[in-house]
């Protein structure tokens, strides 16, 4: 069976467009929130490391701020090359990639990460873009993205994806 879904099913609850069946967007968010609050009540960090790549400084600041505010460790990247470098050099739990970026775009960055050795090749990849045309979604699927989120992204929607996926990976 293909790892990819045949059709892109829009999830209204998360504003997410799943591209594979690896991303969890149906997590029990109330229980998850309690679990997260418990973790944050300790030392205020979740011990998860997310790489965020967007060439637009304003978008990068908005997303990075809301991720850090929520206790995640964030490595900021201005293009796909910097994101790939961060993945190669550090343990990373998830990568959020804009698609249209200079130097190396998000599609090429996703392909490069998927070509790395396991376990880095297996990192969940989230595309964050304003172009969700069918052609672009097909390109994202081919490049190895797990899910696409349309800009502007709200915190709750993004966290449903991040927490649902990473908490299950920890539990696995």
């Amino acid at each position, binding site marked *: 069976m293909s790892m990819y879904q045949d059709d892109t099913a829009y999830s209204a609850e998360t504003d997410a467009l799943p591209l594979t069946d690896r991303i969890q967007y149906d997590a029990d968010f109330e229980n998850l929130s309690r679990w997260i609050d418990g973790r944050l009540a300790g030392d205020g960090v979740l011990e998860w490391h997310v790489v965020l790549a967007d060439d*637009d400084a304003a*978008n990068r*600041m*908005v997303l990075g*701020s*809301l991720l850090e505010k929520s206790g995640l460790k964030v490595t900021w990247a201005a293009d796909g090359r910097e994101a790939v470098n961060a993945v190669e050099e550090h343990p990373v739990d998830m990568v959020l990639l804009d698609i*249209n970026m200079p130097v190396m775009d998000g599609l090429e960055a996703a392909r490069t990460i998927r070509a790395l050795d396991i376990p880095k090749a297996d990192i969940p990849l989230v595309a964050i873009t304003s172009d969700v045309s069918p052609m672009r979604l097909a390109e994202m699927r081919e490049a190895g993205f797990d899910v696409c989120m349309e*800009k*502007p992204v*709200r915190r709750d929607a993004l966290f449903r994806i991040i927490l649902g996926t990473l908490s299950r990976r920890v539990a696995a």
Partner: protein
Amino acid sequence: MTDNPGSPVDQQVLAGLEADTSRDLIPELIGIFLKTADERASQIHSSLKAGNLEQVAAEAHALKSSSATFGAIEVRRISADLEIAGKNSDHAGAAQLSDALTGALEEARQALADYISNIPD
């Protein structure tokens, strides 16, 4: 949808942004948005003069995205049209939209300044 119909900025989007990040951070975020938006608008004008419509489309795409994040409705609408004009190699249409973008950015700048000045201490 805006709380203030006719406003160049969607107040609900800004309120959501404030809730997702922090009230203290909003002036800095808006400042970064306006700076990068000015740079992209300038790049659009110069790319248009150079006849590089592919670059016009790329810059307009980026501006469409960031203006949506900050609720700058009219800037977003013009950027989206500009991206299409660039992709279609429609130089005349892109030139008209590029001029309109300058005015829309100024209106957004004023509305965003008003928003910042109304943030309670």
